[in-house]
C-alpha cells in the first residue's frame, strides 16, 4: 500500500472514531500538546491510560467481589476511572462510568456488576481502536510519510 492510501485510511479511521463517539474533543487537545520536543506524547499518555485502567479495573472487580461491598470505595475507583478516561477523550468509557456512579449511590450490587462489565467492554473497544490507530501511524512513518493534520468540522 502506498503512503497516500495509508494516510487516507488513517484520516477515515480517525474520523470514524469521533463520529462513533469513541473519542471526543479532549483527544484533539492531547494532539495539540504533541510537538517536536515530544513527538510521541499522545502514544505515551494513552499507554499510561492503559496502565492506569488495567489497575483500576482489577481494583473495581475485586471490590465488588467482597462479601460486603464497600460502595464508597467502588465509587472512588469509578470516579478515578471517569477522570482518566475523560482526560484522553475516551467518551464512551467516561459515559459508562457516569452511569456506574448512579448504581454506586443506590448501593445496587447487581447494577454495579453489570456496569463493570459495561465499562470493561467500552474500555477494551477503545483500547483496540487506539492500538489500531497507532499501528497505522507507525506504518505511515515507516513508509516515509507523515501523519496528516486532522481537520474536523462536524
Amino acid at each position, binding site marked *: 500500500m502506498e503512503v497516500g492510501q495509508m494516510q487516507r485510511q488513517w484520516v477515515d479511521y480517525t474520523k470514524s472514531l469521533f463520529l462513533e463517539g469513541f473519542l471526543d474533543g479532549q483527544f484533539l487537545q*492531547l494532539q495539540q*500538546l504533541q510537538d517536536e520536543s515530544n513527538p510521541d506524547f499522545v502514544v505515551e*499518555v494513552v499507554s499510561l491510560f492503559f496502565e492506569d485502567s488495567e489497575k483500576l479495573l482489577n481494583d473495581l472487580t475485586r471490590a465488588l467481589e467482597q462479601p460486603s461491598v464497600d460502595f464508597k470505595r467502588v465509587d*472512588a475507583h469509578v470516579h478515578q476511572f471517569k477522570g482518566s478516561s475523560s482526560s484522553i477523550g475516551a467518551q464512551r468509557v467516561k459515559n459508562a462510568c457516569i452511569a456506574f456512579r448512579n448504581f454506586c449511590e443506590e448501593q445496587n450490587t447487581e447494577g454495579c456488576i453489570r456496569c463493570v462489565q459495561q465499562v470493561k467492554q467500552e474500555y477494551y473497544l477503545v483500547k483496540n481502536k487506539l492500538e489500531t490507530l497507532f499501528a497505522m501511524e507507525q506504518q505511515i512513518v515507516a513508509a516515509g510519510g507523515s501523519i496528516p493534520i486532522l481537520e474536523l468540522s462536524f
Partner: protein
Amino acid sequence: MLASKQEPVDYRRPLPHRETEGPDKTSRPLVGKKFLVAKDQKALTHIAMKTLTHRGATVKLCGNGEEALDLVRNDLVTHRKHRYDYILMDCQMLIMDGFEAAREIRKEEKSYDVHIPIIALTSHEQGEETRRMIEAGMDHHLTKTLKLDRLLETITSICFFK
C-alpha cells in the same frame, strides 16, 4: 520523514520525584513559576506535566498527598518558607487525598505565617465538592484534565490578589 526516537520511558517504575524544565518556546507565560503537582494517576500526571512545562514552568511531581505534605513540611522547617509558587493537588488520591493534605499543609504553615496557593484538581463538575475544598483550605479548583487557559486565569487572579 521519520519520527525522532525518544529515550524510552520506563512506565513500570513508580512515579519518581523529579524536577523538569520545559524546552525553549516563544510563548512561555509560566516561566519562573514553580509547581508542586500531587497526582496519583500516570496519564493525567503526564498531561499536567506537559501542559505546564510546555509553557515554561518548573514542575516537581509527587504521587500522593503524604509525599506533598512531606516536601512542603521539609521546606518550611529548613527554609522557613515555601519553595514552590503553587500546589496543584488532586482531590482523589488513594494514599492521603487532596483535602487531608491541604488541611495538614495549612496546619504546618501556621507557625511560619505563610500561605501557598493550593489549586484543587477535581473531575467533579462545578459545585459538588466546593464546600470540602474551602474547608480544607484550598484556594481554587480546576478540572483534572488541565486546561491551560483556565490555569492561566487562575494564576493571574492569584497574583492580582497577593
